[in-house]
């Protein structure tokens, strides 16, 4: 399973280097927009469903403008939905107050709030993945530094990201070697695990020493420098102001109710 996740990580990385309107935006713009979006979505009260629906416009726009495969992201979102689902599913069991009656079936407040949690989960998780699918990770790190995160934390993120791929490959080698020498459940006990991860740890430390030597010989003084420079362009301004205006509109006006009323009146 982790094998696939690792591959996914690489695929997200590839996606983030595509070229589109969204990809070209300043990472800061996208980061701020994503945070604003998440906070707005989460700020809806417990029993809100209709108010959340217009917010699907944002992922839809990003999917299509950024040319991101929908199924890939949705699959990833479902993969991590366990905790929200696990906590949310107790709402229908515990909250029986009838809130809504449709077609003779009474819907309790618990189901409404459960559904609301899942909608929020889907929106927030999708937006985080879309952010990373349209922005390279070094770009995000750069944005974080520009927004005032400590330098050491940012360089830590850059290092971590760079070496995840290297060490995952190393770990895969170890796992493959273990699997080839063991049958059934043999070799999966804790004793073997400790030796394997201990080995991996020692290799990691030795690698860190080599990396440090290599960095020193290239003039490392404790700071990481980037060549790529980003700029806040008019496209960023348009994107950011449009996002915030829409977020404000969707949060304060009941778009769904208004549309429904208008269309019903039209039918009538």
């Amino acid at each position, binding site marked *: 399973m982790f094998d696939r996740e690792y591959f996914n990580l690489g695929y*997200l990385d590839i996606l983030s280097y595509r070229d589109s309107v969204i990809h070209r935006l300043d990472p800061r713009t996208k980061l701020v927009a994503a945070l604003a979006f998440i*906070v707005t979505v*989460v700020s809806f009260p417990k*029993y*809100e469903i*209709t108010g959340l*629906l217009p917010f*699907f*416009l944002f992922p839809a*726009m990003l999917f*299509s403008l950024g*040319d991101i495969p929908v199924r890939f992201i949705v699959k990833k979102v479902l993969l991590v939905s366990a*905790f*929200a689902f696990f*906590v*949310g599913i*107790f*709402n229908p069991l*515990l909250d029986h107050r009838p809130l*809504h*009656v*449709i*077609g003779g079936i009474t819907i309790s407040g618990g189901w409404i*709030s459960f559904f*609301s949690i899942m909608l*929020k989960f889907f929106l*927030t998780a999708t*937006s985080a993945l879309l952010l990373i699918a349209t922005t390279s*990770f070094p770009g*995000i790190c750069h944005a974080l530094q520009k927004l005032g995160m*400590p330098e*050491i*934390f940012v360089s830590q993120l*850059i*290092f*971590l990201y760079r*070496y*995840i791929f290297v*060490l995952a490959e190393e*770990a895969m080698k170890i796992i493959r070697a273990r699997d080839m020498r063991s049958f059934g459940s043999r070799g*999966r006990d*804790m*004793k073997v695990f*400790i*030796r394997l*991860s201990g080995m*991996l*740890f*020692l290799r*990691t*430390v030795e*690698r*860190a020493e080599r*990396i*440090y030597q290599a960095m020193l010989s290239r003039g490392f003084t404790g700071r990481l420098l980037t060549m790529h420079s980003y700029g806040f362009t008019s496209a960023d301004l348009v994107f950011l102001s449009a996002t915030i205006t829409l977020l404000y509109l969707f949060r304060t006006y009941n*778009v*769904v*109710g208004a549309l429904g*009323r208008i269309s*019903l009146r039209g039918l009538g």
Partner: protein
Amino acid sequence: MHMADALLSPAVGATFWAGSLGAVTCCARKLKESMDESMIPLMGVLGAFIFASQMINFTIPGTGSSGHLGGGMILAIILGPYAAFIVMASVLTVQAFFFADGGLLALGCNIWNLGIYPCFIAYSLMYRPIVRQGNSPMRITAASVISAVIGLQLGAFSVVVQTLLSGRSELPFGAFLLMMQPVHLVIGLVEGFATAGVINFVRAARPEILENVLSAQPLSSGVSTRKVAVGLLVVAAITGGALSWFASANPDGLEWSVEKVFGRPELPAQEQGIAPALKSLQEKTAVLPDYGFKEPDKADKNSVGSSWPAPDPEASVSGIVGSAMVLAAVLLIGLAIRLLRRKPS
């Protein structure tokens, strides 16, 4: 046990964001003073090690399930609390971005739950005092197991508190606690033994890696725990403030949300019964002449409509129709942009 965005309210999310951000800044400043540069690549690569080691899983004795290394504790033992906290925060950040594990708003909570407790509370108050008196393999094992269990118990407890403060889940405090704590007791035990095993392995192979940290720490550890305690108090006060704000705001919030769903302040359930149902039926039939029974399918629609006993069926119908329209519009906009983009290329 990653906290999820969907279970949080903005106030709780922001509070823990502030707390974790403060801790990261404080640790970064602390490291800048005392750290040599060779730590920078070591920290980065160890963060990646946590990811990689999670790929190697093992069977938990007695059960069929498998476990893996958690991370916070082993990092604290090897790097010391400050550097370990920074590494843990970065691991969780990458998880939030790439796996949507947790979420961007919940990241603050997750750094708090999985970083602060193991690195500062469990390590500084449990592991260090035990191991400083002599680091035999037995002592290391005992210390790791105790501190891993305590770190995870605190983390699980704080997930419960955060969920409760946010008020998105119906779970009562006691029941949720009863669900979270025993599960994390088992996880903590397993993680403690796994951590101890790896530490003892490293100690046998390259003891100097562990000694560096142990000898470097005593200078600052006395100060750090006090500072952390003060920080914890501040956050507790802020959280308490948020809680009281919520306690007072909650009934209003509920009413307001009901109003949003139904376009009226009361719960429809309060008016349920035969009389309002009849009344709504009457209203329906009174509206019918306007439509006229000219077409059979229109009459059909109306008979479906009249079986909606909710006092304000128009609101719910318009809600559903509106929802369908919004979702259809979203889908169309998305597809249209995609088609337009495909054409030129």
